[in-house]
């Protein structure tokens, strides 16, 4: 499986997964689940909403990257591929974990995965930007 195909498949699979997560969050709202809607769960709502948003957007980035590498080959592409996969795992999972086990007023330890995913995403983005400038 080449890179373009790998990111097309990965992107759509992850998009499906994160859309499903969105539906789950809507269900939690619809069925008024206390663990999600109570005043004390404000941080959890915020974290899980961010997990859904980041996962969905990063899935689209994977699909866009698939389109980018389909007709273009560049040396850093395998690095970007790994960086984007790490980002799409680390950021949503970090937000999910942070919301699942929050402290009062602070997200749980999982939040530390988010900046790591951010660095990964940034390095991948810079590599693509650098390549597109050439």
């Amino acid at each position, binding site marked *: 499986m080449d890179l373009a195909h790998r990111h097309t498949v990965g992107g759509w699979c992850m998009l499906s997964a994160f859309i499903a997560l969105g539906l789950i969050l809507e269900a939690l709202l619809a069925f008024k689940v206390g663990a999600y809607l109570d005043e004390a769960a404000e941080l959890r709502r915020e974290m899980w909403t961010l997990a859904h948003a980041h996962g969905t957007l990063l899935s689209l980035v994977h699909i866009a990257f698939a389109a980018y590498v389909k007709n273009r080959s560049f040396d850093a592409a395998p690095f970007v591929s790994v960086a984007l996969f790490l980002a799409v795992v680390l950021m949503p999972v970090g937000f999910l974990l942070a919301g699942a086990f929050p402290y009062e007023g*602070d997200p749980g330890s999982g939040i530390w995965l988010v*900046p790591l995913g951010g660095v990964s995403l940034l390095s991948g983005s810079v590599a693509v930007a650098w390549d597109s400038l050439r």
Partner: protein
Amino acid sequence: MISALLTAVVGTSAIALLIVTAFRTLSRPVALGLAGALIVGAIAWPLSRASRVLRESSVPISLANVAYETSASCARCHPAHVRSWAATYHRTMTQEPHADSVLGDFSGKTVELEGGAARMFEEEGRFVMELLAVDRTVESGLELGRYTVDRLVGSHEMQVYLTRRPDGAYLTLPFEWNARDRRWVTSTGNFLQPPPTEGLLGHTAEWNSNCSFCHNTRVNPGQRTDDFSRIEHSAAQRRAIPTANTERYATTVEELGIACEACHGPGHEHVTRNASPVRRHVLRLAGRSDPSIVNPETLTRAKGMEVCGRCHGKWFPRDEKVEMIFTGGEPFVPGQSRLHEHYEDPLTQRLRGADTDGYFWPDATPRPTSMEYQGVLLSACHDRGAMDCSSCHSMHDAAPDDQLRFVDDPSNAAFEDDQMCTQCHEDIDSAAHSRHPAETSGSRCASCHMPYQTFGLMKAVRSHRVSIPSMRKTERDGMPNACTQCHVDRPLHWAAKRMDQWYGTDELAGLVERTPVPASVVELVRGHALTRALAAHALGATDAITDGDGGWRLRILGAAMDDPYAAVRKLAADSYRNLSPGPIQFDYLAPPATRRAQLEALDLPILRLPRGAHEWSLPALAMDRDNSDITVLE
């Protein structure tokens, strides 16, 4: 912890994968730069920071000179704690006047009480009290005229209104709002004290050097040193001194009301240090307490109790500290210094032989409500057990009324749950021990061991000195006991006999009298003002037990409603209303002639004492009444 481990494993693996891939596909300098940044930024720096946090968290910090934040800063990290505090009456103890905080009726009606009159109204968004009449000439900072309400104290039982003078002094206005009864009262008629001799305005007090300390967060009265040296301090506490418009006070308050830092100490260092997310997470993961803030739960019991005891106890500045406190502010920081370093408590004064009758029954049980700390200190449960304030009260997860732990129904804080006691006395079967049927008020621990021996906010309150009922003390000192406070139709010797039979005490032998008159009646007729007030409360309590229909209580309470003490009249009238089948027209603060007319209209039943006690014995008891002046110094 599982989440933290998972994060560490996933994070480290991700870093390793990214670095390996970078070396395989990117140029060496770029890969080296990325690897360096990741290793330093994501591993080395957090680890070194974590190690520093762990080191510094074991070093105590002096908070004596640390600046204060406010609850708004606390809410950023502790929203649930701030929300639970915000629901309490601690938060609203002192407030600026606005539509949501003012409880009193400022609709423009004129109120006439105790020979004084005032009209309360709103004008251009301000709340105004216009004093229209006073009955005596008194020394006071207030004269007839309009006073803007500039600040207010209380939001639960009472609300006191303050006006600010040009010299910086906030003076209490003489009409106060009784929130429980939803009516205006006078400050002189709002305490258990002899009938006023100073007149309606005589009770005016300066907030800056009195109420402010316990009703706010870290107060500095800012009394000018020259002014302070000119006025003898105890007089300054009692009475406003009229002065020219020169500044006497530059009072500062860190936060109005009793906010987070009143119990947790000044928060600036805590806020500054914990701006680092690494610090917050490391401390939580390591389970370390943070030395930059006070957590009353982790203090020693003595220090923890002083956090509450500073204000739920009586304290007087030590002579050598008086000027420093009034000019420089509250020196006590919870968990840091000890109260005795700065203050002396009435128990010490009592041991020294000072007159402390306003504070204690003869056996040293506190009389006013504001001495719960001293009451607990004197309890065997504290002395020989583990009891402290938090054994029964919770600041962050209890209903606002009384903030009691273990209350099954938070909407009903009056429910008194035995769990508070069975935490330690786990083997006691309350029904067997009390000899009262289970689930009745007689089987409740507090009913017998925390009787209504305390007075404050114009009501009888449970004593915080956990004690064993004593009929001897009732006879000797007029201090009511739990047995005859419930069994209001029984004489003292009946209760003493039961105590001796059930618990092997020696109460009966210690009694001098064997009158068949119920103890509650003896106390109401013959006792001093505090005894009378507490007896009046007991006679109308919902769980009082009496022979027959108990109609005799209405007659005896009706007599007490003509008592010279406003507090006795008030509690008697409250009890009468509890027992009366219909509403009654009676104002305990009305002029004597009006009150008597209202009493005559009550059509009181003929007095028939229960259980063969003779009514004709009452005049003799009344002749022996203890008419000594009693003041309960709340």
